[in-house]
């Protein structure tokens, strides 16, 4: 687990809201090795989601360097970053963010439309991803016909289907009951341990953090400690 997957070096992020400038991250430095499962915790406004967005290439730092899988993503243009995200990172959101007009398999297939795979190959990959999350029998169901836990599994399958090495999850269990949340976290744990995915989750829930290999605490835009 020594080879770095994510390297964040001296990163600062400043948001401008009208005339006001808000510095959310202050010279933050962090390394996440390949195959790690990291939980980011901290109070609201501490910069957890901002850090996650930067690692996932959804946003760019105001200053500093971010390297993921050996590539400096802070230097990529908007189009290059979109292309990089499509092939290198999977996202899981608190509210699943599935497309309501598509079935479970349609949702999972969506990222594969950006690849050159044939229709048959795409369907095969989708079937595998749904199998991994235990929802093969729900492939034809639309999101409104699924429970919250099932929706989140579909979202995880969507994040996995392109076989990215990095999964970033923003409060993936924030909208679920304890039992379902544990099932989802257990699934993430399997993906980390058995499939070697590097996972970074943001959570407020200490129990959720227990599923991670380590927990990092942020406060006021700075990393407080690194607990094994």
């Amino acid at each position, binding site marked *: 687990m020594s080879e770095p997957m994510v390297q964040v070096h001296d990163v600062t992020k400043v948001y401008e809201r009208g005339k006001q400038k808000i510095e959310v991250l202050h010279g933050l430095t962090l390394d996440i090795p390949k195959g790690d499962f990291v939980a980011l915790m901290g109070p609201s406004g501490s910069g957890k989601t901002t850090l996650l967005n930067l690692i996932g290439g959804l946003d760019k730092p105001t200053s500093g360097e971010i390297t993921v899988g050996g590539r400096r993503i802070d230097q990529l243009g908007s189009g290059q970053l979109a292309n990089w*995200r499509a092939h290198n990172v999977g996202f899981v959101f608190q509210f699943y*963010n599935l497309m309501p007009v598509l079935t479970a398999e349609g949702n999972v297939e969506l990222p594969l*439309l950006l690849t050159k795979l044939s229709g048959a190959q795409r369907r095969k990959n989708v079937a595998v991803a749904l199998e991994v999350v235990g929802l093969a029998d729900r492939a034809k169901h639309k999101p409104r016909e699924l429970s919250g836990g099932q929706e989140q599994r579909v979202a995880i399958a969507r994040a996995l289907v392109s076989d990215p090495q990095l999964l970033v999850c923003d409060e993936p269990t924030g909208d679920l009951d304890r039992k379902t949340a544990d099932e989802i976290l257990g699934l993430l744990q399997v993906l980390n341990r058995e499939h070697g995915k590097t996972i970074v989750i943001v959570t407020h829930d200490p129990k959720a953090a227990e599923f991670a290999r380590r927990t990092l605490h942020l406060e006021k835009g700075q990393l407080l400690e690194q607990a094994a």
Partner: protein
Amino acid sequence: MTRTGFVVANLFRKRTRTILTLLSVIMAFLLFGLLQSVNTVFSSGADFVGATRLFVQARVSFTTPLPLSMVPKLEAVPGVVRVAYQQWFGGVWQTNTPLIMFALDPQRYHDVYPEWKMPEAQWQAFEQTRTGLIVGRQLANQYGWKLGHKIPISSNIWPQKNGSKAWEFDLVGIFDGKDEDWQKRTNLAFIQQDYFEEANQFGLKGRTNFFILKLAPGANAEAVSKTVDAMFENSPDETKTQTEKDFNISFVKQIGDIGLIVRWILFAVFFTLLLVVGNTMAQSVRERIPELAVLKTLGFSDGAVSGFVLAEAFALVLAGGLIGLALASLAGAMVEKGTGGQFLLKLDASVWLLGVLAIVLMSLAVGLLPALRARRLEIVDALAGR
């Protein structure tokens, strides 16, 4: 699933809204197709091919009467075998039902229009009865008129010498058409020119609205037309000679500048459509800002996401436009059949081409702003609901 499938699925996310919007696009393009083909008919040039009759009217307007003294001159033109003439009567049945009614010379008209079928005895009765009236089968059936009835008809133009606009005629004949097409035109009524001249208060004598020239078989209609117009050039009664079809069209053109009217109606229709579809697209994008942000998160570029939105607008307008134009073709064919080929409301290639151009322009007009909004979307802000 394909990108096209995704676009179609998004289009029907609010089924009722999409169907209603689609209906408005269909209606707009149905109108576009019909009006544009009307415009094509009215702006088309003279077509003398296959003409067996020509209409001669005053160059200024057919409402300006021409002298009947022109008849022998017209009959002397090579290619002309017989000349008839008609004077608009402006007949009104009961309170305000207008009739297509003319005063004419019975024998001449009978010679020029063999397509009307009526027993010879009735033609003779028409010729011999000064107050005689003959009507088409449709008209007789519609108002229950029978031979021997006295038919009171008023004229909105011509009062009698006693000042009354109420005239009374003796129904002496009912004519049919020679075939189905002509049967559809039996909504006409004719009275005697002699009686009309004698009884009208304004003393309009020896003049008529237009002449009808019956051509010899194989006669060159265009050459006859040019000869006639040249003959009366620089005279007090300059003429305009055209085919029956063009005359009918110019009759409708009296209403006004048809092309301008059509353009204004279409402008109003498309402007309304722009607002309706534009609002639908804008609302549709507004409702799914987070979804568009997720697409970007998954790796779809700004261009791809705005492309999805534009494709939706295009698909909506294309589907509605093509259905509307197809319906207009169908309606045009029905109108053509219903009028016995007198009104050729055909959607030709130029109308279809204009329709497709309108589809493309309309798609861009309604899709461009929502597409730009989708393009400019910042993922982080959109996901956070800002």
